[in-house]
């Protein structure tokens, strides 16, 4: 299946990845090749076949939905890893941006 450059640009936007023109062009060729390969699946008859179950059906299952107390070192490191901070608070860009005039 051929992918137009605009389609790839749309995907890149959905995935929140900035790509320049050269990267977009390269990505469309590469994706086209890979999709061309995986399209062989369309030829496999799967009528009546169930989907593979989530991995490890015999697994231990979910733990209770309860907060787990982290050790103080973990908390310290989480804060240390903030890309920007004020005191112990994470600084993030504003969610609502001033409309452009």
């Amino acid at each position, binding site marked *: 299946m051929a992918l137009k450059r605009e389609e790839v640009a749309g995907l890149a936007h959905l995935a929140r990845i900035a790509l320049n023109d050269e990267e977009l062009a390269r990505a469309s060729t590469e994706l086209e090749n890979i999709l061309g390969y995986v399209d062989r*699946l369309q030829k496999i008859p799967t009528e009546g076949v169930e989907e593979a179950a989530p991995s490890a059906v*015999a697994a231990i299952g979910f733990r209770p939905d309860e907060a787990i107390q982290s050790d103080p070192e973990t908390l310290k490191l989480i804060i240390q890893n903030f890309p920007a901070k004020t005191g112990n608070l994470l600084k993030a860009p504003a*969610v609502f941006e001033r409309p452009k005039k």
Partner: protein
Amino acid sequence: MAGLNELTIVEARAQLDAGDISSVDLTRACLDAIKKTDQTTLAFLEVWEEQALEEAKASDDRRKNGKILGTLDGIPLALKDNMMVQGRNVTAASKVLEGYVATNDSTVVKKLKAQGAVFLGRTNMDEFAMGGSTENSAYQITHHPKDAERVPGGSSGGSAVAVAANMCIAALGSDTGGSIRQPASFCGVVGLKPTYGRVSRSGLIAMASSLDQIGPFAKTVEDAAILLEAIQGKDIMDQTTTDAKAFETSTLDGNMPLKGKKIGLPKQAWGDGMSDVVREKVSAAVEQLKSLGAEVVDVDLPYADEALAVYYVLMPCEVSANMSRFDGMRYGYRSPNHGLLDTYLTSRGEGIGREVRRRILLGTYALSKGYYDAYYRKAKKVQKLIQNAYASAFTHVDVLLTPTSPTTAFKIGEKINDPLAMYLEDIFTVGVNVAGLPAVSIPCGEDEKGLPVGMQLIGRQWDEAGILGMAKTYEASRT
């Protein structure tokens, strides 16, 4: 006399127990080997020299007091750079995690610490484990220990080289589509991908969560078994781990009678998709197993040919979801001075490398409205057919045998610009991940340039003992 760094876990353990060597001696020998060798191989992203020597010293003290913690006490190991060790850098070889400090221990590291293991450093890999050559690292390209112009395989290339070049006693890697077995094959060491759910993934930086599994690289089959025994087990932090019966190294028998054991050669794998030397060496190994008493039969593994296509739908879908957390907000690289949307776009555009971006885009496409049924749902159905085919084959054979990789180590740069050619390197290994089975790669010869060839033994779910037992018997018959 061989250097201490060349010892196996079993040998090192015996010498430690006898009081002939100390863990500090052993650790220092590995650190010296890293200094000497790793200027050319570039297997390590960071060496924790000071901490490793402290850990070794602590182990020696425990031993003096008769209080050793476990089989791995004082044994120096290397870790792939996607397993968290609290307080130490971990990057998954990505710029997006440059400077990131692990906030807690991964479960495997907790288990190894509980045994008293020594950690030498973190090893290079393809960024977020995406690749088959360790060329996709954002930091450095790792070189094959026998030929610096060639790749060591990937994505766990650094760990494979660290073991092959005796820069550690053993190492851990992770395997989503072949990332332990293929580099093990290229570098001539033992690499095991456990049954999905055998080893906790908590604290492993995720690539494709339904396929990822941590496993050992080792110099011998028994060492791989010892590491597996140490890291396995259910974990409340990973709901896909299970109560399955624990694997026990003590059950392995190097003289396992192969009489009555049936090995299947999947005809889908033994077609024309492999190099002559790989066919020759792996066929010789099959003859060797026959001479040890095993019965060898051809088996039909319908849809096995489709595993790579299934993999290249399911894996990118999971990748696109898992990579969304690297958004420049709470940790990792943030491109400064933008509004919200541009912070996302540029942080990810600048921080995430080409192969990872490619897979995110592919997954975003396959999961988008209008394509979900045609790609994801279809792939999940074919995955079921593949799982059924393996299950049916295992009703009449004990082990399936294939080459690990269609070729020996290729040249740096040879496949990096042709994603599909690179992906085809995984043709024999991905089926195992798609079916959730255990498989081990063991060395079975070398090509005319001295580059190793590996064979893959695939087992029933939870039957690591079966494949490792057979591998150990084969290994013993060659020495």
